[in-house]
């Protein structure tokens, strides 16, 4: 299992689906662990009754069927499919509405789904918020910049309340997976793909309710992940390329040429004395 997880971390993120399929074929006895420990791009289904799309994950799955957050019905149909308790279902419906608005404002398109369930220990509740965006030309891209562009965000949040119901304790685990290829024909393909996962835990007052708190945490986390990918991760891949082949003509003290120049100057100075 450790070897399997190590290999998943090394394979190109753009091939992660194929890598996972291979591991599932190789280690069928570990399939549930493999599936729960490796995140994959989200699949989309449609709820004909509500004429809306929804996303599939382990948390809305029962057997081979997936529950729509809109109608709460399973597809393929399932008579006795698991349903959240009435109170949580109400929260789920509200959350789906609010996160749709959030998604529109940040993503200008895409699909989102929220699923809420009762944890095994019966304390508090748990929810997952899924957002998928296809930013390519063929998808919801607005600027014609991407030939391929997918963003998948998976947020799983566990919520507990204190005894007086004054504070909520939130534990959030978020993963973002993305793959993009720019559409610039002249300069050849330029692709970036990756995934990162982060966790955070915090206590918040319940004055505006759970949904408001969960929303703020997820918004903050998504911005952090986006900036991390943009500023840190992509920046690092650029650094790697520029150390493999130095941009000649740009002299810096740390560059290879810079250093050899420094040595030469030091030598010359030594000789002239």
């Amino acid at each position, binding site marked *: 299992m450790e070897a399997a997880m190590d290999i998943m971390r090394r394979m190109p993120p753009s091939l992660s689906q194929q890598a996972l399929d291979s591991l599932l074929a190789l280690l069928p006895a570990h399939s549930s662990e493999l599936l729960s420990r490796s995140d994959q791009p989200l699949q989309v289904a449609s709820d004909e009754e509500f004429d809306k799309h929804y996303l599939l994950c382990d948390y809305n799955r029962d057997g081979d069927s997936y529950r729509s957050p809109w109608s709460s019905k399973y597809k393929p149909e399932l008579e006795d499919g698991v349903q959240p308790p009435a109170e949580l279902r109400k929260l789920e419906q509200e959350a789906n509405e609010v996160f749709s608005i959030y998604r529109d*404002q940040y993503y200008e398109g895409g699909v989102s789904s929220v699923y809420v369930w009762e944890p095994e220990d019966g304390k508090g509740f748990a929810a997952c918020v899924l957002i998928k965006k296809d*930013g390519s030309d063929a998808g919801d891209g607005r600027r014609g910049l991407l030939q391929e562009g997918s963003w998948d965000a998976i947020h799983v949040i566990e919520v507990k309340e204190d005894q007086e119901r004054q504070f909520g304790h939130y534990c959030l685990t978020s993963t973002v997976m993305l793959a993009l290829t720019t559409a610039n024909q002249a300069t050849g*393909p330029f692709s970036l793909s990756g995934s990162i996962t982060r966790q955070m835990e915090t206590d918040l007052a319940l004055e505006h309710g759970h949904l408001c708190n969960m929303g703020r945490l997820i918004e903050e986390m998504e911005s952090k992940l986006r900036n991390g990918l943009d500023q840190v991760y992509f920046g690092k891949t650029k650094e790697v390329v520029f150390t493999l082949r130095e*941009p*000649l003509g740009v002299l810096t003290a740390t560059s290879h040429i810079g250093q050899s120049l420094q040595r030469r100057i030091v030598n010359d100075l030594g000789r002239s004395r």
Partner: protein
Amino acid sequence: MEDRIQGNLEETEYEELGDDQKVSIGKWFLLNAPPGQVLQVAKDVRELLTDSQLYDRAASEAFPEYNVRSMISLEMPDGSGKVLLTKFGELDRSHFLVPRTASVAVVDHVKQMCTEVRPADDEELPSAYVEGFRFCVDVALLKYVDEAFQGGECSVYCTKGKDLEKSGGEFEVTVVISNSSYSPKNFRGGCWQSVWGVLINEELHSASLQGTISVNAHYFEEGNVQLQSSRAFNDTVLLQDGKDAGTVIVNSIEHLESVFLSNLEEQFANLSDRTFKELRRKLPVTRTLFAWDKALQLSLTREITREFSGNRR
């Protein structure tokens, strides 16, 4: 629900994969190893396949392909430098021509070692005339690679018309530059490969260049992010008497490779403000953080309207 999901999967009867399928999966993982990490992936594959005979089969099929495709270089045991593994120097699966020293390196692909070196036979080498030209390109190339590619390797092969005896004809040399790095403690690795076919027409005093540059970079501290980019180039240069042809050709390569890098830099510069916006904006269209407390109100109003109108959307 969790229990139910796991129950369902575990009840399924597994179909054991055939040996050939296992080998081909192992091979697929090895071939897709990121730059410099094939040995780590090999360790994982060995564990996953559990049967060492199956691993050996996967490795013996994957490594020769991986090594040549990744253009790895291996130290030669006689101390004469490194041999670059490329399809241009591949005499057979385990023998590679080293044009600079006019020798042939024997390679153990799975161990990634050069085990033996012998002098090249006459028929493996170009004519003295073509070799003279190849040599002058190689000298200029070494100088450029030493300046621009820390730890990089390069080679110049005669790929067409190698037996040409005198001036006036057409022949081709292929210039290969390969550089890779892997630093697990800095969580990074990458590779650069450029291949330039240079067709020399002495009657026209010209050389036409056709090249491809490709780069791959991997950063994996608490994540897994990979960059891939490539581009093809064409150019024609004039070879004038009195000017060193090697320098003229290598200058053109250097120029085009700098163009590639500055394009890459532009792409990175556009990422933050333009490209990334297609996926997720930094701020909502409203340019302020999302109003969670109000949104709840909004969705409640929507719901009430919906209940009254009986319209679900």
